């Protein structure tokens, strides 16, 4: 899967890998996110290729559906951080890449207290 953007000056093709890594990057700077999770395994390395395993994307009628599997910090308001993750990711992807986002689904797979 890849995203094709037709502009009046030509075509832009963005591969999944790029989208997924961008999303992972946006997500790491969201408050309350201390890691990602891949099939239940926690990934805390600050390596974008590793982290992006916690990001899944699919298409729904030319719009993007994003699943985020994250590890949250202990002691934060989960509902609030989830809301702001959804909003940040949606905003950044729509503005940085021009791809419309249908929905962002945040899965809180684990919780840790980082010291």
């Amino acid at each position, binding site marked *: 899967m890849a995203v*094709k953007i037709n*502009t*009046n000056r030509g075509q832009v093709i963005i591969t999944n890998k790029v989208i997924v890594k961008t999303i992972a990057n946006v997500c*790491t700077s969201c408050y309350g996110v*201390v890691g990602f999770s891949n099939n239940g395994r926690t990934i805390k390395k600050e390596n974008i290729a590793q982290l992006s395993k916690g990001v899944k994307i699919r298409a729904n009628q*030319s719009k993007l559906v994003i699943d985020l599997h994250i590890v949250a910090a202990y002691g934060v*308001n989960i509902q609030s951080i989830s809301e702001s993750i959804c909003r940040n990711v949606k905003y950044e992807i729509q503005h940085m890449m021009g791809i419309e986002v249908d929905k962002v689904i945040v899965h809180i797979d684990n919780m840790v207290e980082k010291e």
Partner: protein
Amino acid sequence: MLTGLQYAKMIISGANNLINQKELLNEMNVFPVPDGDTGKNMSMSISGAKKVAEDILDGQTDIGNVADKVAMATLRGARGNSGVILSQLLRGFAKEMKGKKSIDAKTFAKCFSIASQTAYSAVMKPTEGTILTVARQSSEAVAEFAKTSDDILEIMKKAVKSANISLSHTPDLLPKLKAAGVVDAGGKGWVVLLEGMLFFLEKGEILPLEESTTLADTSKLETTANEEITFTYCTEFLIDKSSPDVNVDIFKNTISKIGDCMVVIDDFDIVKVHIHTDNPGVVIQNALKIGSLNDIKIDNMRYQHNEKIIKKPEVEITKEPKKEYGIISVSAGEGYSSIMKELGVNHIIEGGQTMNPSAGDILEAIEKVNAKVIYLLPNNKNIILAAEAARDMAEDKVVIIGTSSVPQGISALLAFNNNSSWEENEKSMKEAFGLVSDGSVTYAVRDSENNGVVIKKDDVIALNKSGVIASGKDINEIAFELCKSLINEDAGLVTIYYGQDIKEEDAENLAEKVEAEFSDLDVSVQFGGQPIYYYNIAVE
């Protein structure tokens, strides 16, 4: 000394200040999403704490207790990014005050450091130039100041002052803030809260809540927004020099003052000129002094820019063309995964005895592989059902090869031929794994009895199709027993896959022993890397 009652009043005072100034904060909100709700979020987050603090005013309690209640209330009421960070900062305060009746100046100063640390611990990649930066830099200043001061009021003053300084630097750290000409709204919110707290310490009374909030624009900074385009017109032309001796340098100097991105190439009898300017007329008039003009092109860049922004590109999401065949295999161990990759598996699902992939995981893999016909190797009895469920949901043709162990899966993979039809492949893969008889060596998790074999917890046990066939203490001995039970007259090849807990030399020893006993068999040793199972042994 600072008491619980005083802290409660400080919080109320700070909360009032935050609520009074929420409109200002809303206006300043441009990062991370310019949705103008920071003021609303922060004031709503703190209003729960305010209520709790007001309840405390009736009966005095310890400061640790008050701080804890305030932090909990803020945590529950936290909204938006800045609200959550605010709750973390107050949680940091509570951590340091915990169990104390009242606190001295040194502890109070330390609260700021702990607050900053707590806030930073909840994010992987902190964005500098936000409330986090303001909290950290002011806590550093406070810590330094507390070495020489023992006065709570002075420390609070220092905190407010340093937070304000830090706040004024936020546009240097976040370009988005600079472009909008504002300081960070969340950071401002923290400063406002601290100012409210200071108001109480200074005046001894709670800062009152204003009826209607007024808009103050004191924190707008003088910066130029829309930095990308400074000059409107992109001007380009060629000059045919009237004589080879004209002085191009004077022309260059004149026009460089009224524009940027200037390129002037002096090429014998022609001069090529490119410049961004607001006065293309002046540029052209000066150029006329050197010669006649050619190929004049003047574009309005602002217009182009707007067009670019307004015109929404059409977006379509396309799929790559489908491959003929795709193979999905479930693996339990890194060694197995790399063997499978070599054998041409397109997608490996990590799974196994203790961690079965769901039908959803398998379906996702099917979509990813993107092939016309997909062979699915569950490699575990427990996964076959999920695989069937995924097959029924998938749009593509999925053929399940019902392998119940990884060694069976590997035999099936060896039988796959990219040039055969899918029916032939299905047949030969199913035949191939059917010829494999395999078993495994693992340990018992509890005492039991199976097939007449008495097993104690932590004993090494060998299993084949019919159940437990041997138990004991020595892994290799049990594995050898297993080999003997698996090998029959038709056997030709023994493959020993050793797990993550077994050393390669132990596996080699086992192989030698098997070879010595059954001289007409080929024995090969492979690293499976599987957890839980010491060995998987396949005989075919």
